[in-house]
């Protein structure tokens, strides 16, 4: 038995117009946690695809050795049979099935083709206990938060006798608490002998769990660090990722805050299905000109629901309360009206709600501004193209052309496309829901710079974030929400992580 569970040697993978992987080599020892770091579009997810058989042998050059043997996977199913499980960047549970059905999906035990659901229900319990998920196995997964869904995915992996678990940005949609739990779980599984590859843009987490770290840049493996033999720092990783030093995480901001622009009073939102249930309860807040405010709180606090409901009633069965813009009462019945009145919204769910995956980068960027880019209903194609090119350049969207389909972009670059769409619509109040989800450190800095610049131009920014350091580094004021209520507000100077947590739980 070889020391390495996985060896990747000289792998090259090309897409039309893009070389996603260029002579990548690295190896994972048995029982270690190996982290992959790299900028958006560096090729991390593609590498996972090569290892796990999404790209079959022959679609790439180079060799992949799994458990010492040349991998011949032709699909995910093949690799799962051999004990390799991938949890993808975008979750892949079946949303309307229950927890235990999802756990045994694709490898149901059956006798003569008949599934014994009761047996499965019982069989699922130990796995749920193992991952620390305290839920009825019959719960429908879409009714749970992303964090819990993530745990179901891991339970599913455990039920399949996984030897090598690959997690592609597992914590990007979790809050700090949930992330911490997940990392602990990974460390425990490691003790039990499982090997693990984890991709993450959160370098703190990487340093916490990694035994070794491989850095990718522009599709090439730059270097591998061993955290046991050398002292690895964030700066070292970042330098490998972007090829230069990055001195600070948050750009300097000179706030020039003006009068109040928008107020929200007693905003209450009811659940889309259970019409009596309040998802947001009497939320009141206001935003001033040139100000960045952040909404913090645990998952399920009602932040996204509040924002979507404000954005032209895009969420909930009904809502009540009052919203004013420049002192005038605002009645928005649709997102269309909201955008017309100068409100922009970047959704946290870019795949379902932010983008049209089968359309090109250009189409996606202009989708909110088609009227602006047209004359008498006829598109001004030249202007459209130059606007799209402008954002591709200023946000450094990594794509061979603006006519590339958005679905072929890496996760982080897709996020930049959503941002571009909202920026092009030129809103006065910019609601950004988890704007830096799945975005690398360098690009984060760029996005923060853009937000700051918008603020200095007199725009107001409402930021929903699960990353407390981000809120502390960016916001002028921080609203803390929990269980549908606004629990309080903190000024930039006085806010600390402990205070925010404390306020949320009070």
């Amino acid at each position, binding site marked *: 038995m070889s020391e390495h569970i996985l060896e990747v040697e000289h792998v090259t993978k090309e897409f039309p*117009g893009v070389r996603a992987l260029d002579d990548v080599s690295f190896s994972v020892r048995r029982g270690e946690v190996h982290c992959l770091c790299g900028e958006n579009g560096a090729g991390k997810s593609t590498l996972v695809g090569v290892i796990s058989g999404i790209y079959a042998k022959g679609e790439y050059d180079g060799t992949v050795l799994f458990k010492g043997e040349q991998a011949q996977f032709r699909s995910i199913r093949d690799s799962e049979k051999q004990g390799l499980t991938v949890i993808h960047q975008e979750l892949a549970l079946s949303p309307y099935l229950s927890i235990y059905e999802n756990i045994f999906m694709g490898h149901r035990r059956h006798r003569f083709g008949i599934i014994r659901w009761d047996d499965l229900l019982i069989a699922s319990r130990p796995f749920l206990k193992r991952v620390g998920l305290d839920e009825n196995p019959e719960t429908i997964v879409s009714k749970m938060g992303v964090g819990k869904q993530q745990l179901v995915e891991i339970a599913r992996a455990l039920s399949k006798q996984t030897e090598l678990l690959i997690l592609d940005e597992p914590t990007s949609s979790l809050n700090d608490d949930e992330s911490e739990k997940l990392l602990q779980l990974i460390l425990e599984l490691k003790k039990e002998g499982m090997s693990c590859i984890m991709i993450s843009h959160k370098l703190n987490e990487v340093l916490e769990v990694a035994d070794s770290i491989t850095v990718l840049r*522009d599709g090439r493996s730059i270097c591998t660090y061993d955290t046991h033999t050398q002292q690895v720092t964030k700066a070292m990783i970042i330098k490998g990722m972007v090829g230069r030093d990055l001195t600070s995480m948050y750009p300097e901001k000179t706030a020039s805050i003006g009068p109040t622009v928008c107020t929200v009073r007693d905003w209450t939102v009811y659940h889309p299905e259970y019409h009596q249930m309040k998802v947001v309860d009497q939320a009141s807040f206001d935003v001033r000109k040139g100000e960045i405010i952040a909404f913090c709180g645990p998952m399920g606090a009602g932040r996204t629901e509040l924002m979507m409901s404000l954005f032209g009633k895009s969420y909930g069965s009904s809502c009540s309360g009052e919203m004013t813009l420049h002192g005038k009462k605002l009645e928005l019945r649709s997102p269309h009206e909201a955008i017309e009145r100068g409100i922009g919204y970047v959704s946290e769910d870019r795949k379902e*709600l932010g983008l*049209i995956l089968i359309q090109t980068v250009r189409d996606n960027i202009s989708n909110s501004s*088609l009227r602006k880019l047209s004359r008498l209903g006829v598109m001004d194609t*030249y202007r459209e*193209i130059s606007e799209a090119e402008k954002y591709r350049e200023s946000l450094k969207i990594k794509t061979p052309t603006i006519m590339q389909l958005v679905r072929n972009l890496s996760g982080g670059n897709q996020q930049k496309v959503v941002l571009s769409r909202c920026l092009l619509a030129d809103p006065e109040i910019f609601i950004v829901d988890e704007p830096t989800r799945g975005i690398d450190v360098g690009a984060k800095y760029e996005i923060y710079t853009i937000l700051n610049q918008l603020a200095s131009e007199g725009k107001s920014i409402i930021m929903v974030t699960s990353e407390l350091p981000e809120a502390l580094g960016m916001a002028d004021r921080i609203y803390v929400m929990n269980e549908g209520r606004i629990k309080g507000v903190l000024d930039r100077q006085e806010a600390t992580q402990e205070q925010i947590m404390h306020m949320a739980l009070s």
Partner: protein
Amino acid sequence: MGNSQQQEKRLTFFQLAKDNIRNYSMFLMLALIFIVFSILTGGVNFTSRNITNIFIQNSYILILAVGMVLVIIIGNIDLSVGSVCAFTGAISAMLYNTGMGLIPTLILTVIAGAAIGVFQGFWIAYAHIPAFIVTLAGMLLFRGLTYIITNVTPISLSDDDFRTITSGSISFESLDRGGLHLFALIIGALLAGLYVYFAFRSRKNRIKREFEVLPVRYFLLKMGFFILLTGTLSYKFADYRGIPTVVVVLSLVIAVFVFITKNTVIGRYIYAVGGNAKSAKLSGIDADRVIFIVHVIMGALAGLAGLVFTGYMNSALPQAGNLFELDAIASCFIGGASASGGIGTIIGAITGALVMGVINNGMSLMNIGADWQYVVKALVLLLAVYYDIYTRRKAGLG
């Protein structure tokens, strides 16, 4: 990314042709089928008379396919178009028989079709009933109404003028030379000239702005193809009776809707809503209204198709339009539209409809009955869609 850009410049002509095979594979298929039938019929299907006939015999399906592809792009389906054709066809005959003349009849029939579209569009877009169900109901409803207003007997037309809309042709005797209707050639040349002019102008503009353009060879090939096509068609028309009136109607419809889907805001809305309705809504697009408008357009085009079919039969039949919806839907899928919405083109749907038309026509020329025509069309539909899905998956479009 440095190396990706370099790579792009190095794209050769053949690579580009290979990468884009999806975009023109249906033209190749149409040409291939046409050639096969030319061989099988000993060239009969390439005669001027037959070319004209193919257009006349399929005109109403072509018109329906234009509307249907829009419906399919927004992710819906319309099963009612056959019945709507019968109903509007009957209405057009009744209107014409009052003696109001052809143009008012045409306008009123299209309006009647649009009104039906408003009715169905309302239930689909605003009452949120699946289009499949609404138009299934519409299929029954309008068939029933057709029987009621016609008393289940054909309505014959008061004079023969009506049929000119379908089977008539445009030519000027003063321009006829040696058995050729020169007018058709002049129009063909004009169209080709305009195409070349606009293609060059747009290319120059794009280069000036440093936008990407097709490689020269590819560009010229495309242009040559278009000139060849218009040239052949106009020659064939000139050789027989001149430009068929229905081809003029058809060209106008196609031109208008190609323009709408490619260059207008509403066209972009249609693709956006079809691609992902939730996202489109959050991008500020009024998805319900877009869906409504598309069904109104479909209704209006079904009205036009009903009128053209009445002209073709020279009377309004209560059983008219039977299975038209299936031909129209099949055309769209053969032409590369995706059943899950967001993907499809007018030109594709037209090509698909012509593929079916050429098969029908060729087999009729060979005296093969309707039974085998169904079998062959079914197989072509399956193979075409399989090929489409296969190449799409290979291109990483899932």
